């Protein structure tokens, strides 16, 4: 049990490459903390620094109040689950799970007791005397988890533990991991590139890009109030629609329609006029205009021709395209977001594909025009140059907070009432 504090932790390699730049946040005791980002963003490096397998170039890492920068991994009392599982192939499952305890010279009765208990927890009891070579992927994964939990460590560190499993098993194991963490109440740092995993598992999530922590917050904060374009595009599936926009008075001009902004949003946009903007609109901010009951007075309606309909029973997704796209500003981002649907939504040079999630009662049909309503409270505006979210609710006074400050301010900030009251935001983002 321990609180992990990262104080401007930086990793710089011999060739000058900075894998992690001034990571600065606190992982609370007992928290399930997720590091998420596209591959190569430095999240695994950061994890390796926490466990001690990589040296920290500068900055300080404190675990339970003590600086551990120079403590050997074996003395940090942390347990790690590797992406490759890293089970010892020449040992049986029992020997694998007992290994950390044997190294610690624990007596035999205690070792047996703990291994049996962990095996029961992970449903491995009947496999205890088998060799890992004969186990399935999911079983090996559980052995790796078992080896971590027998130690009763200060923290669990997991490096993409589920990414080698097939889709169905992954969902199953996700629940297992979540339940296990809840039951043990041990501080857990979990690395993943899958935003769905991050959103469903994490108490709090840190989004990383190119070695820099973009935002730290609860999944809900990240979804409703992203710090910048990157977080906005990365979090959420289907991805946020990103369209070119212009601000004129209190009206935002989108390619398909001009939307008058509510005062509370407009107030935050001081000085944004005349700048190149990108509007971020979550799919659920659209609705079939004929089905809008509340808030219909605000907002704007427009007609779009539906290209594709995805009906999933409880959900209905419509795809339509609009003239004009923010393609040039987003090309960089699209390349980095390796999630297929995020990239697809960015369209090409002269039109953008937009996804909307509307009421299943809608009569939308492929190839037919449909009148759509857009919720102005849910439009976020980003600076096209810096990517910064100009409509962010908890921006510090100046609206120019550096990433570092944003990161450390984040835990205290709660989403403002306006967002939370919105019925759509209560839906699961995944």
């Amino acid at each position, binding site marked *: 049990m321990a609180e992990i504090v990262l104080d401007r932790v930086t990793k710089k390699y011999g060739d000058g490459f900075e894998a992690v730049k001034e990571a600065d946040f606190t992982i609370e005791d007992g928290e399930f903390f997720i590091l998420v980002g596209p591959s190569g963003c430095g999240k695994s490096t950061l994890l390796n620094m926490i*466990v*001690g*397998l990589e040296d920290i170039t500068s900055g300080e890492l404190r675990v339970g109040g003590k600086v551990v920068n120079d403590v*050997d*991994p*074996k*003395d*940090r*009392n*942390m*347990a*790690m689950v*590797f*992406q*490759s*599982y*890293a*089970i*010892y*192939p*020449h040992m049986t499952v029992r020997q694998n799970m007992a*290994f*950390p305890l044997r*190294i*610690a010279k624990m007596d035999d009765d205690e070792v047996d007791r703990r291994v049996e208990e962990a095996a029961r927890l992970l449903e491995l009891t009947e496999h205890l005397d088998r*060799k*890992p*070579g*004969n*186990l399935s*992927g999911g079983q*090996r994964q559980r052995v790796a988890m078992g*080896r971590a939990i027998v*130690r009763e460590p200060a923290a669990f*560190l997991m490096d993409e533990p589920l990414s*080698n499993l097939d889709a169905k098993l992954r969902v199953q194991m996700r629940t297992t991991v979540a339940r296990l963490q809840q039951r043990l109440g041990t501080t857990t740092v979990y690395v993943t590139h899958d935003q769905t995993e991050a959103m469903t598992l994490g108490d709090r999530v840190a989004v990383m890009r190119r070695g820099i922590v973009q935002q730290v917050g609860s999944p809900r904060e990240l979804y409703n109030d992203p710090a910048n374009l990157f977080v906005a595009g990365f979090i959420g599936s289907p991805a946020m629609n990103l369209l070119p926009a212009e601000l004129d008075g209190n009206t935002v001009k989108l390619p398909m329609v001009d939307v008058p902004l509510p005062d509370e949003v407009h107030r935050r946009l001081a000085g944004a006029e005349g700048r190149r903007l990108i509007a971020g609109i979550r799919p659920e901010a659209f609705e079939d205009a004929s089905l809008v009951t509340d808030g219909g007075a605000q907002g704007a309606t427009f007609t779009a021709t539906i290209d594709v309909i995805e009906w999933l029973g409880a959900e209905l997704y419509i795809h339509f395209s609009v003239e004009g796209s923010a393609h040039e500003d987003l090309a960089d981002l699209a390349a980095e977001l390796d999630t297929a649907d995020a990239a697809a939504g960015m369209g090409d040079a002269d039109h953008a594909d937009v996804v909307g999630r509307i009421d299943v009662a809608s009569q939308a049909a492929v190839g037919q025009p449909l009148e759509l309503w857009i919720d102005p409270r849910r439009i976020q505006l980003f600076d096209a140059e810096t990517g910064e979210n100009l409509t962010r609710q908890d921006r510090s006074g100046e609206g120019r907070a550096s990433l570092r400050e944003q990161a450390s301010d984040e835990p205290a900030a709660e989403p403002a009432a306006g967002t939370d009251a919105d019925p759509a935001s209560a839906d699961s983002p995944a």
Partner: protein
Amino acid sequence: MRPTTTKDRVFWVAGAAIVIVYALVPVAWIISLSLKPPDKLTDGKFFPRNPTFDNYTKIFDDPQFPAALRNSIGIALIATLLAVTLAMFAAYAIVRLDFPGKKIVLTGALAIAMFPPVSIIGPLFNMWRSLHLFDTWFGLIIPYMTFTLPLAIWTLSAFFREIPWDLDKAARVDGATPFQAFRRIIAPLAAPGVFTSAILVFIFAWNDFLFATALTSTNRARTVPASIAFFTGSSQFDFPAGSIAAASVVVTIPIIIMVLIFQRRIVAGLTSGAVKG
């Protein structure tokens, strides 16, 4: 694939038979010679008429051969143990660490292995005499190690490279010191490589004739291959073919035992199941 016909079968059986005969007839001939009494040695018959173990009792009665056998076993085992242990550490360091001159170490080792041993015999003879290593066990163990280490390092680094690095890391996080991680996780997994190189080193040391004749002078350190060359018959003009044959048979047995023991340990795919897939 087309079904195997009788012609195929005949071809393969005949081929196998030729190889077996080619490889084993000389061995059988030596065994046959060793069982013949001295006056029948040149009778030209493949199967000895009256097999006798006289040659064997004779070589073991002479103090020279048992001493040589003892030297051979001792020297070969110690050389193997030292060479393999050193090679394990060296190979592990080469595979896991990134240090300047890593390539030079590896190519240098290979260059030593290619070096013709006969070219260093002269200097070595003089050095060993002044260092009092001449005619001692260590006087032979050192050159054997020098010439087998490169091969052992290359073999072992190939095996270590196959072991996922995550296993070292996992062991370290599990609380093991680097040495514990090596001894309890990495070394057992590299066992096939260890045994492979052990066999190679042992055979080299066991069969060496060059160093053994040049760097020894008495029964103190002379090994079997050198000792056989010093066998004498009952008179100066008597060629001790029977004794040589018997000694050759005896000296082959430990090698066969070694290979049979270690062969069972050289099982591929020991690392399967460590990581995904």
